[in-house]
């Protein structure tokens, strides 16, 4: 019964994967249909290009900044929800809404909110005395696209961590109370350690996903201004479909796959660690 899935999965994943390795050693420049062997030229070209390293650098800022912010906020909101006596389900359901918004809509919606002439949030910022074109300014564009990711995906962290908090048994908390622990101490020494696995799971899922998507950036900034938000995935799309450098793009794609595969390996390990 597993066989049909494995065959289809091989066709849609293994075969393309090997094809990409093959493509990374071929030169497609002259003839798309009859590529010539290029040896390590594509790899050399990609690995020595400044843009490649700069894009990975921006990816690190984007992923690092986004993950830290949504993790901190997500855990904080989960703890808030855990501590309220009523309406917990109502609040958590409403808070989940951004998760269902297509990333392309998120990008365009935030572009509208931050629009220098018509934007609601831009108007707020102007009232606060801040007069900048957020998405058109190299200093603000990256924080803005990070904010979009945080807006859309913080609820994922929140609901995963909240699910963990709700399974924490009563006894250690009561014992701590008897011993005179205050609320913060209970959070710090009992609740957080007990949901550590959920936090790691949420973080891993988000790290893989933050590498996966480029939709939001594609519509909000198109990698600009002046490449300020050009993360590696967006750069790959450009190399492949704008510059039509298929071999180079294949090499570039493989560097992305290496990173996501390492994260995947780590995820399996965590998943198994406390399963049985």
């Amino acid at each position, binding site marked *: *019964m*597993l066989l*049909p*899935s494995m065959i289809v*999965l091989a066709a*849609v*994943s293994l075969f*393309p994967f090997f*094809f*990409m390795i093959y*493509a990374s050693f071929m030169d497609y420049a002259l003839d798309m249909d009859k590529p010539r062997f290029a040896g390590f030229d594509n790899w050399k070209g990609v690995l020595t290009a400044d843009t490649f390293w700069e894009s990975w650098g921006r990816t690190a800022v984007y992923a690092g900044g986004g993950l830290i912010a949504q993790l901190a906020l997500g855990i904080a909101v989960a703890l*808030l*929800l855990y*501590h*309220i006596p009523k309406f917990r389900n109502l*609040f958590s359901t409403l*808070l*989940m*809404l951004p*998760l*269902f*918004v*297509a990333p*392309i*809509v998120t990008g*365009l*919606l935030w*572009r*509208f*909110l931050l629009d220098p002439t*018509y934007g*609601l949030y831009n108007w707020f910022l102007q009232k606060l005395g801040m007069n900048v074109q957020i998405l058109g300014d190299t200093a603000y564009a990256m924080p803005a696209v990070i904010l979009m990711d945080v*807006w859309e995906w913080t609820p*994922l962290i929140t*609901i*995963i961590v909240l*699910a963990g908090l709700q399974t924490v048994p009563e006894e250690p908390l009561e014992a701590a109370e008897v011993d005179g622990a205050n609320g913060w101490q209970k959070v710090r020494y009992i609740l957080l350690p007990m949901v550590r696995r959920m936090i790691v*799971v*949420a973080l891993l*899922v988000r790290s893989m996903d933050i590498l*996966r*998507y*480029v*939709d939001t950036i*594609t*519509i909000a900034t198109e990698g600009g201004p002046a490449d300020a938000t050009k993360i590696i*995935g*967006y750069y*790959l*799309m450009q190399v*492949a479909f704008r510059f039509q450098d*298929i071999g180079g793009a*294949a090499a570039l*794609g493989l560097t*992305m*796959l290496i990173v*996501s595969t390492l*994260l*995947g390996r780590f*995820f399996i390990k965590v998943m198994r660690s406390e399963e049985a």
Partner: protein
Amino acid sequence: MAASRRALHTVLYLLLLVILAWGLVPILYMMLSSVKTQVNMFSMPPKLIFQPTFDVYGEMFAGRGDFAEFLTNSVIVALVTTALSLLLGVMGGFALARGNFKREKDISFWIISTRMAPIPAVILPLYLIFSKLGLIGTTTGLVFAYTTFNLPFALWMMSTFFKDVPIDLEEAAMIDGCSKFRAFWRVAVPTAAPGIVATGVLCLMFAWNDYSFASIFTGNGTQTVPIAVSLLVSQSGIKWGQAMATGTVIIMPMVLCGFLVRKYMVRGLSMGAVK
């Protein structure tokens, strides 16, 4: 003590309201803007009380535009990839949950890395293969492309759901004379039915919300709704009214779906790692 606790709760609720505003204002503002006239939509401070108009929606559906076609394409592609992934995923997931594989760890790793592979890195080789097979610009191509992440997702989720079905149930059925397949079909599948529905809804959502694959693999006549969104952005400006309306149309069904399988959301979004 009780008084200080009540004060604390008040503070917590107030904080939550702020968080709620941060999450919901953009969505509400989008819906509100989609029923405003151009003048009202652009006026600052924002108008909260106004005469709503559904002109933009009317234009989208009745006008010369192809919005209905985009919508049809989206529905077809999302449904077909979901059906395909579920069909294979339910069988395969069951085998994964029940079988004793020597290489089970490798298979799991393969499934997860396929599901989580960066989309641009998946698009490129598929593009090369599809061009050779003449699948660029076709609905079939897009369905295959979505299956690259929906099939591993369905396999993975269904194996975790089937692991929750007590094996005794199937064994009892088999003692009563059921074949192995009948035990799967009449016992395991109905017991795991909520999990199947939840997995299907999430597959639907991933396909429906995708822009990147669709931007490369679709052409005239096969484009999906997220492409309609991107077409509203051009050199000469952005059609904000239509953008807000299209955005609203895209998210509404997904919000409904999300609420429908709310109970399984945590499990789906954590790839089965948290129940």
